[in-house]
């Protein structure tokens, strides 16, 4: 007994000693590594980086799927500017970056660059630096900066343009004899689903996450109201003020009719709320379904299951049975991620370094290549001519080129939470359409939308 106790305590001591050793050994190794690389780099471009102390800035990334690519970009940026180190911090998929940033401000520990959803940018207006005089402002795509202004100051950098709709796997469609480009009404979509089922596959998969249903699927109905921002705003103000009833709106009802059809041909029909964003890419990538409602950000997870197949693309979610109606041929697209630069916690040098990083992305070949080809992000800048390397992004880019995009409407976290929950209920058949309308009306009259 006594002996075994002694052995045990010895073991414990050993383990603790080891863990201390590991903790200590790690840091010097890393920093010496950094020293080495930065030495060799500074030798290579002394012209650019001669001046300036070493600056370290952090970048909060809320697009989990490009974490590794961003880290690579940070590395190649560091090659051009050896005195600036950018550290990429991840924020979990599906968790709101605003939430995290608010907690970070509460802890007084804020990254220099923060990737936010555009709807949340204005909330940080007194902490974010004014970017109105930056060079890239004049090269930004028309409309991409609209949502990033607060009090006439531009405070956001449009990082990514994204679009959402029904992703199709062409292999499945070809097998069933369906031509995706010909689908522009609800009944044609249903025919396509029927043909796919006849070929032994399932029609569609609907991700049950509240952010997908609330922030993308349902907002398609807002985008379909009009082709300009002021009319859409007027519609939303009507909803908030109570002068417009959501249940009377033709586009909303049309969208929900399509949603009913999608529900009917959903692969997870028996248990619709168990379909998660984490497992859905497998279903479409390995050709079990023809369609998936999602956005172009889903390419990297799909790719893992699609093998050599790159024949994927988008069609808009139809909102009526009249193919000429607005929305049936238009994909919602918007600036979905914006960067703000913190001024409250980070030093002047860090803020300047952050601005340098943004300019590097827009104007230097390496930065553009990293953004477009590696991260597969559709750039919001017209000076970038690189073509994106993934089929979904390409599909959106071609919609943009043809002028066939509608304005993607980005609203607050509460909108996505409340409307998303109401849509989940409707998806799982726990509520009727009237109850869905009642819950959405409750959100709109709650005063959250300003």
């Amino acid at each position, binding site marked *: 007994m006594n002996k075994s106790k002694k052995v045990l305590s010895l073991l414990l001591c050993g383990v603790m000693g080891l863990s201390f050793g590991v903790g200590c050994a790690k840091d010097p190794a890393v920093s010496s590594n950094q020293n080495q690389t930065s030495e060799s780099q500074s030798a290579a471009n002394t012209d650019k980086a001669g001046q300036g102390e070493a600056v370290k800035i952090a970048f909060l990334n809320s697009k989990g799927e490009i974490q590794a690519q961003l880290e690579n970009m940070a590395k190649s940026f560091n090659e051009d500017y050896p005195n600036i180190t950018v550290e990429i911090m991840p924020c979990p998929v599906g968790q*709101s970056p*605003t*939430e995290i*940033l*608010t*907690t970070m*401000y*509460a802890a007084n520990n804020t990254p220099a660059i923060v990737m936010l959803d555009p709807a949340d940018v204005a*909330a*940080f207006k*007194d*902490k974010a630096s004014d970017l109105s005089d930056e060079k890239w402002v004049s090269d930004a795509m028309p409309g991409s900066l609209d949502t990033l202004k607060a009090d006439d100051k531009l405070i956001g950098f449009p990082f990514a343009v994204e679009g959402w709709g029904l992703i199709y796997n062409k292999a499945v469609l070809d097998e069933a004899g369906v031509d995706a480009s010909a689908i522009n009404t609800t009944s044609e979509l249903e025919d396509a689903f029927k043909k796919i089922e006849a070929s032994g596959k399932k029609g569609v998969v609907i991700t*049950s996450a*509240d952010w997908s249903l609330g922030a993308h699927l349902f907002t398609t109905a807002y985008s379909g109201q009009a082709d300009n921002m002021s009319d859409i705003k007027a519609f939303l103000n009507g909803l908030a003020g109570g002068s417009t009833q959501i249940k009377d709106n033709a586009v909303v009802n049309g969208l929900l009719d399509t949603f009913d059809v999608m529900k009917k041909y959903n692969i997870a029909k*028996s*248990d*619709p*709320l*168990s379909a*998660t964003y984490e497992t859905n890419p497998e279903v479409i990538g390995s050709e079990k379904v023809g369609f998936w409602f999602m956005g172009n950000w889903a390419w990297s997870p799909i790719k893992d299951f699609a093998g050599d197949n790159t024949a994927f693309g988008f069609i808009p979610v139809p909102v009526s049975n009249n193919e000429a109606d607005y929305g049936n041929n238009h994909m919602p697209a918007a600036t979905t991620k914006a960067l703000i630069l913190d001024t*409250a916690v980070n030093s002047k040098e860090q803020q300047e370094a952050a601005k340098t990083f943004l300019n590097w992305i827009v104007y230097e070949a390496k930065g553009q290549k990293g953004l477009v080809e590696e991260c597969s992000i559709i750039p919001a800048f017209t000076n970038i001519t690189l073509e994106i390397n993934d089929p979904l992004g390409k599909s959106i880019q071609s919609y943009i080129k043809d002028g066939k995009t509608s304005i993607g409407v980005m609203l607050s*976290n*509460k909108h996505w*939470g409340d409307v998303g*929950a*109401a849509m*989940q*209920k409707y998806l*799982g058949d*726990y509520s009727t359409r009237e109850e869905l309308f009642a819950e959405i009306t409750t959100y709109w009259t709650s005063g*959250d939308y300003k």
Partner: protein
Amino acid sequence: MKKQNALLTKLFTYTVFAGPVTLAFFTVIIIPFLYGLFLTFTNWDGVASNFAMVGFENYKTIFKDSGFIQSLKLTFKYVIFTVAITNAVSFSLAAILTSGTKGQNFFRAGFFTPNLIGGVALGYVWQFFFNNILTYMGKTIEIPTLQASFLSSPGQAFWALVMVAVWQYSGYMMIIYITGFLNVPKDVLEAASIDGAEGWTRVKHVIMPLIMPSFTISVFLTLQRTFMVYDVNLALTKGGPFKTTELISMYVYKKAFNERAYGIGQAQAVVLFIIVAIISITQVYLSKKKEVEA
């Protein structure tokens, strides 16, 4: 003169031994608590540089907030079931594992292990279990109730949370009960047997009163932990499906950080603190009264 010296010595001893702890206690508990209390009287949104004092406005909104009341009710339901089941299970386990069963040390270690897994990891493990393993089993052996995931139905998701909590806490509480069982004096038990008390009678009239302190601690710990649970709630259900399993901590967090109503969220947290404090103190007071000396 001598008295003053004694006071100084005392002060010195206190500073040396308890000073660091007092400092830490003030900086990480008392000051944040008071600052938090102050924030409940403001309309701060969590990020803005300026905010205004609004008096008791935040507290007034709490009781008009149907979401808060609903979430509080759900939490009460969760606490009642979890505390009752956890303590029943851990008491039974302790009774079995002190009765001289074969391999009881192995079983004790086994039941304690879940307590060593962090809440978030545990939540994901169970999510996988409910979403994939259980549904797969249901499909293979054709039990219709198991084919749909527990987590996608509003009624069952609640029970999934209770199950995981019971599984997580039972082992820890079991250890506390085991200590209680081992401390019951053998002579009392022997006397009871001679008097003819066996089985349930012996447990109810002899053992239970003697291990009352274990009950006090276990019930207190489970009460406090289940009221404040957040990690498992987040990792297992995220409050879903459609907000039906949003326990109070998650509701308060979302209010403060997600909807950016820091003042209101903080006020709700204070109300929650008062509720939990009252319940825990009452519980400790009542069960202390029942404790007896052998």
